[in-house]
């Protein structure tokens, strides 16, 4: 009996191939985007873990040279012999690879990532041996023996300090890590190694934390598309059940027990769901593989985080994709099975599509929507933190989506009363009658279009601001990086002689107001006065900075430490200065404090400027002169145009991923409409047949279908504009502020929205084209059959 029953159930799909396609494709698309995004996130997270464990850098204090130079090995030995438990690290580059040498015997982290891999063939005396992953190994010179270690961060090769010294041709050290346990009675650093200073462990600014926001962004997109995909699944399941009511009634009348039927249907739907999800996981892998290089570029550009460019099939994402797809299906299925279980044996097999949308259901939906929107409002007023931001987004989007059918019902009822002539009256009434079934697809379209409006507004506003920011900040025509204090002094002397305006930049890292902060010393001059624009400032901020009586902080620091113009900030243990201005800074996520050059030198007398901005009319000539006179390599110099181009390239790549995900969600929404219309087509014959019988031609009916799709899409688009703008506002003022520490001004791009509106209309038109064509080609006999049983 089971087999007969199953075959009867499956016959439904054979007769409705479009439905099974919709079901599988809906699930596949939903799972694809979800698992694709998860795959990217998993890959990135694995890379961060590798980076953290490879070097374990962030967790220990360091001793670094005061001059920003390297450290003599004798200094290291002097410290050890004084009892300081420090361990040497040398860093350098071999081509594109960052090579890090440590002493595994004294390192507080041991060999980091290599630890987990079991015994290592450590040989201090043998040929040059490094550890790296396969990708990095390809970039290392051929004469280096590389032991492949997948857990090591990309772009990094690890080795013994002695071996790395040999490979780099050096005999010094880059910095020393300080072990957490130190012996009692240890002498002061100043007496043992006066040239070094203690740099506290980086707290609260690990790469993983910085990039959290970016991954949350991706996850939100993944969830959004998953929700849209589940709309498809939900509506397909609904239609399939409505259509199968007569069959279920017949099967039960023939004596199939309810339990057997429910079990079989559950097995059938979940089995299909698993197939759909598996297809989705394969697609997801492909999406992730295509997007990963862009994501990698983004993370490198924004945060300096290296992530592996190759994708691994990790259980954490493909299993979660499978699970969430099957669970989503099960949720959609549960309600329907409940209905079957409660359905009286000989209940009418009348399709529910005939039932007008019940007023009660709409009221419930309206209430739910209102509650969510109120929650969104409350979150926007009182919410704290990134998660609250995303919760706000969720409430806003779902609330708006739930409200859509309610609004449509109201709007269509009005249009119906305004309609002239019976055909238009019928058109609007019929549209309204389809609303309960179409509304899921329309909600999907609403979400996709408003996400598009919101995200593109955010990205374009960001870009506009960023370009302006680059113009302010990159005023000097040439930038030069030097290696040490001696070179710095020679360069400055040379440039002064040549009467160029020099903007030396002194920098060091510090902990200010509890935040890891970059401290900058600048030579206040016309360039700064002319170009920097502030978010808020005292009347003459540069005069105060120049006098050493005030500082400028960037927006990130201002927000995190809640320090604004007029507030006082502690720059060193015995110096507090007021903030003269807060400057927008869209180039990095860290906090910054800008001091005058003189004040900086007083606080850090050992530091020399290692970066210079130079105003010049002839960049190429000056570059050549600097190389010729001082031996500074051309590669240590970059001109303004190149930096700008590079920065914009990074920016644009950053949002390639966002744009790609946007297009994909729009596609999924278009597909949802197509599938709903297709599955509706057959159900609607009994409603269309009387109209046809009254004299409307099939062609006219087909045109009506197209017109309806376009009209509905237009209405959706009208609703999507305010929703999209609200979304953009949340992204710009709440999510960005939390994630990056900067608030961006919102700009509007009406031309873009218009274009997007056209796309949405076209998507709806295309989606309706096939069902409409089918309708036009319906044989009159099929339409006549509707009346066959009416006596």
């Amino acid at each position, binding site marked *: 009996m089971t087999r007969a029953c199953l075959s009867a159930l499956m016959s439904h799909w054979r007769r409705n191939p479009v439905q099974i396609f919709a079901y599988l494709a809906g699930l596949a698309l939903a799972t694809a985007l979800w698992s694709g995004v998860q795959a990217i996130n998993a890959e990135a997270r694995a890379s961060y873990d590798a980076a953290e464990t490879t070097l374990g850098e962030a967790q220990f204090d360091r001793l670094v040279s005061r001059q920003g130079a390297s450290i003599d090995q004798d200094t290291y030995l002097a410290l*050890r012999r004084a009892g300081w438990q420090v361990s040497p690290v040398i860093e350098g580059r071999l081509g594109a690879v960052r090579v890090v040498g440590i002493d595994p*015997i004294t390192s*507080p982290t041991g060999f980091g990532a290599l630890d987990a891999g079991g015994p290592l063939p*450590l040989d*201090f005396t043998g040929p040059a041996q490094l550890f790296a992953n396969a990708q990095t190994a390809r970039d290392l010179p051929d004469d280096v023996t590389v032991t492949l270690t997948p857990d090591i961060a990309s772009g990094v090769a690890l080795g*013994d300090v002695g071996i790395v010294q040999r490979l780099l041709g050096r005999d010094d050290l880059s910095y020393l890590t300080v072990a957490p346990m130190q*012996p*009692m009675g240890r002498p002061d650093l100043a007496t043992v190694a006066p040239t070094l200073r203690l740099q506290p462990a980086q707290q609260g600014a690990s790469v993983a934390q910085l990039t959290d926001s970016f991954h949350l962004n991706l996850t939100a997109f993944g969830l959004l598309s998953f929700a849209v995909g589940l709309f498809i699944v939900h509506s397909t399941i609904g239609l399939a059940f409505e259509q199968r009511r007569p069959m279920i009634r017949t099967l039960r009348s023939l004596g199939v027990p309810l339990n057997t039927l429910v079990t079989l249907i559950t097995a059938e739907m979940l089995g299909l769901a698993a197939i759909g999800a598996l297809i989705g996981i394969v697609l997801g892998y492909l999406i992730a593989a295509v997007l990963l290089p862009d994501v990698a570029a983004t993370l490198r550009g924004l945060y300096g985080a290296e992530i592996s460019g190759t994708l691994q099939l990790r259980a954490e994402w493909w299993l979660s994709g499978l699970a969430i797809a099957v669970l989503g299906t099960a949720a959609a299925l549960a309600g329907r099975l409940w209905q079957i279980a409660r359905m009286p044996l000989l209940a009418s097999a009348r399709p529910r599509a005939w039932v007008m949308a019940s007023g009660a259901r709409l009221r419930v939906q309206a209430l739910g929507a209102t509650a969510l929107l109120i929650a969104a409002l409350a979150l926007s007023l009182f919410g704290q933190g990134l998660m609250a931001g995303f919760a706000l987004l969720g409430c806003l989007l779902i609330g708006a989506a739930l409200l859509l059918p309610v609004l449509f019902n109201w709007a269509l009822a009005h249009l119906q009363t305004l309609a002239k002539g019976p055909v238009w009256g019928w058109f609007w009434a019929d549209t309204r009658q389809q609303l309960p079934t179409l509304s899921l697809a329309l909600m999907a379209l609403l979400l996709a279009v408003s996400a598009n409006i919101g995200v593109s507004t955010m990205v374009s506003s960001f870009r506009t601001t960023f370009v302006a920011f680059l113009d302010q900040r990159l005023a000097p025509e040439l930038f030069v990086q030097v290696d040490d204090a001696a070179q710095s002094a020679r360069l400055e002397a040379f440039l002064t002689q040549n009467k160029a305006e020099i903007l030396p930049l002194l920098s060091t890292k510090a902990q200010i107001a509890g935040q890891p902060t970059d401290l900058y010393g600048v030579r206040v001059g016309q360039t700064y006065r002319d170009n920097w624009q502030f978010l808020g400032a005292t009347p003459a901020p540069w005069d105060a900075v120049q006098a050493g009586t005030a500082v400028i902080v960037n927006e990130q620091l201002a927000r995190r430490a809640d320090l604004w113009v007029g507030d006082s900030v502690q720059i060193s243990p015995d110096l507090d200065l007021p903030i003269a201005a807060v400057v927008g800074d869209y180039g990095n996520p860290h906090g910054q404090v800008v001091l005058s050059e003189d004040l900086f030198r007083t606080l850090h007398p050992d530091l020399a400027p290692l970066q210079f901005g130079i105003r010049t009319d002839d960049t190429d000539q000056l570059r050549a002169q600097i190389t010729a006179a001082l031996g500074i390599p051309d590669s240590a110099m970059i001109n303004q145009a190149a930096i700008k181009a590079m920065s914009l390239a990074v920016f644009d790549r950053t949002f390639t991923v966002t744009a790609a995900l946007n297009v994909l969600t729009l596609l999924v929404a278009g597909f949802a409409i197509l599938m709903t219309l297709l599955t509706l087509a057959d159900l609607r014959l009994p409603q269309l047949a009387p109209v046809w019988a009254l004299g409307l031609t099939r062609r006219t009916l087909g045109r009506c279908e197209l017109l309806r799709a376009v009209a509905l899409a237009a209405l959706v688009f009208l609703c999507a504009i305010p929703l999209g703008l609200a979304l953009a506002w949340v992204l710009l003022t709440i999510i960005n502020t939390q994630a990056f520490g900067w608030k961006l001004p919102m700009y509007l791009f009406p031309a873009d929205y218009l274009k997007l509106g056209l796309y949405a209309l076209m998507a709806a038109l295309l989606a309706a084209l096939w069902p409409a064509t089918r309708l036009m080609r319906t044989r009159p006999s099929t339409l006549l059959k509707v009346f066959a049983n009416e006596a």
Partner: protein
Amino acid sequence: MRLRPLAFLCLWPIAALAQGFSGLGTDAEGFAVPAPNPSFSFPADHGPHPDYRIEWWYLTANLTDPDGAPYGLQWTLFRSALAPGEGEGWQSPQVWFAHAAVTTQDTHLATERFARGGIGQAGVTADPFRAWIDEWTLEGADVDNLTLTARGPDFAYDMTLTADGPLVFHGEGGFSVKSIEGQASYYYSQPFYRIEGTLTLPAGRVPVSGTAWLDREWSSQPLAENQDGWDWFSLSFDDGSKLMGFQLRQSDGTDFTSSTWIAPDGTSTAYPSGAFRAEPLAHSTVAGREVPTRWQVALPDRGVDVTISTLNPNAWMDLTIPYWEGPVTMSGSHTGRGYLEMTGYE
């Protein structure tokens, strides 16, 4: 320092200390192997022997403060070679590590240090004698007159040592056999130090004085495959005589023992396996393991039959390589103080 890389790095040589010597076998892999009838040359042999795999300068002391409260002190410098010989700078295959500990009746403080050979962070020179790692030193004009210092996060000590007797050579003139198959080490001691100085403990500084015992040993294949660990005793009796005895526990349940009787004037008699006996009387749970902390020790040939009690049963060296090491007292045929080391109790 995380355990794994070091445990690996030192897998063979250091494991011998704590985890028995299974896997070490008899193959010395290019390292020099101790040979019978050694002729030592001093002061040079107080210095390192890089062609051998493992070597130590092992000092233990029984101390008392002015109130008569007993203390134990340990200072050990280990040399462990990844390959025979020396190398330039970081390329040296020599790895150094050291343990320091102070034991009182109710606390046991221990710490450790690590260093690469070849760069000057640790090493030993014979003349003048100087053994060091980081700021820890054991040094002096010669080994009879030394100063000793070590520092940890919660304790430190600064001591001076003066030897009142000659060096004592174990086994056959310093060739100390460790198994029936003939594994052996070079092994001699200076058991006649008077020691005094200051312990810096969490509670404050404590002046102390007492006696100390320095062991010097080097080898390349110290144990046989079937040996799991050892129990080593250095006992100083109140009548001035001394006894060094150890037993290597074998996987078949039998023991290989070795011992040296040292008369008050320093003349010594070595005994072959079987002459010295040590039986556990009671165990204590220490660091989650059952460790014997009362022993019956006998050398019938000298009329020695004593019960050994630990000053502090919890003298567990909770370091990268864990083992038990602490001061003991004895009663029975003889009375006195000494040190006990137990390895391989996993």
